[in-house]
């Protein structure tokens, strides 16, 4: 683990990927999940808790 990473890890609520939040992360920040690319809102930091941020849907043909 590199020095600039917060050792506390969050879990993606969509795909359960566990990843370390970057140093300096603040509540309300949007982070992409490294596995499923879901946009995640940081809702708490101690311990880290992530929630799915609203996404823009594709609507071709609708």
């Amino acid at each position, binding site marked *: 683990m590199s020095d600039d990473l917060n050792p506390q890890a969050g879990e993606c609520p*969509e*795909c*359960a*990927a566990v990843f370390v939040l970057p140093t300096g992360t603040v509540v309300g920040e949007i982070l*992409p*999940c490294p*596995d*499923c*690319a*879901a*946009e995640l809102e940081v809702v708490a930091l101690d311990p880290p808790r992530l929630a799915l941020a609203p*996404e823009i849907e594709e609507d071709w043909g609708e």
Partner: protein
Amino acid sequence: MRVSVVGGAGYVGGELVRYLLGHPGLELAQVTSSSLPGRPVTMVHPNLRGFTSMRFVAPDQLRPCDAVVVAGGEGPAQVPSLSELRAVAPLVVDCGPRLRLRDPDAFRAWYRSEPEPPEVLREAVYGLPELGRAEILGSSLVSGVGCSAAAAILALLPVARAGWKLTAPACVEARFGSSAAGSRPDLSTHHPERSGALRVFAPDHHRHAAEVAQALGWEASRLSYAGMGVEMVRGISVSIRCFLADPVPEKDLWDAFRSTYRDEPFVRVVAQRAGLHRHPDPRWLAGTNLCDVGFWLDRSGLRLSLFAALDNLGKGSAGNAVQALNCALGMDERLGLTFMGLHPL
């Protein structure tokens, strides 16, 4: 290590030459062609100009070397027999179909031609490293893979290993770029017939079903397998609809894909929730040995769609053959195969 390419004038042969010319641990020895002996390799593979001055040799001019890779694209009459090839090299990797199926009767039924002798089929190893690299290591006879079969196997493998039961056959729809039909033209590949068309050439029972079933340990009846020609030169896109007997949580699906492919250098899990490119697309894999696999599960957890994409001339044939060759020789599987693809294209 000196490696020769047999049947190098076709598209798979050209890709084998390209990969081997860029391979840091292997030296391209000879390239055979029954139709173009004496002609420069670059006459039919213009992308290789400036990288080789090699000329095609007739198959009977093949000299002893450490390994031969058979492109397998010139038809059975032009492809040397396995015994001829094994007389010149201790390792044969054959991209054609003759070593892919273990069961001679299955080969007869699906390919409507006579199989290799049973003892040869028993000795040959199926050449998809993700399925069994330990078996390939040190083998002297390695098969290639069917282009759409490789994609379908890699999409289905995590599901098969998880043991999830399906209530109906998995419905595979494979879309093929035109280069998958080879370099020999016929009416189906003629531009006025193919351009702009979406031609279903196999409504079901595509022969790659046999290979996928064998790889997964399934009966072929557990697959419905259709093939369609699409407006691409390179590329295979496979969609597979599965109906699960019991609901599967999406996180378990992620776990199944992560655990299957975490350490695989050429398989990427692409099932993204954001951005334009959320699912596998063969366009961005042209020229690579990559296969992208992905999935989508509906809210009930019962209806599962699997996706896979690859370059039929890369991970679907020549690239995979070089990976299998690396594997058989005990080399780093990534050697010669590090091209990342292009975007945009």
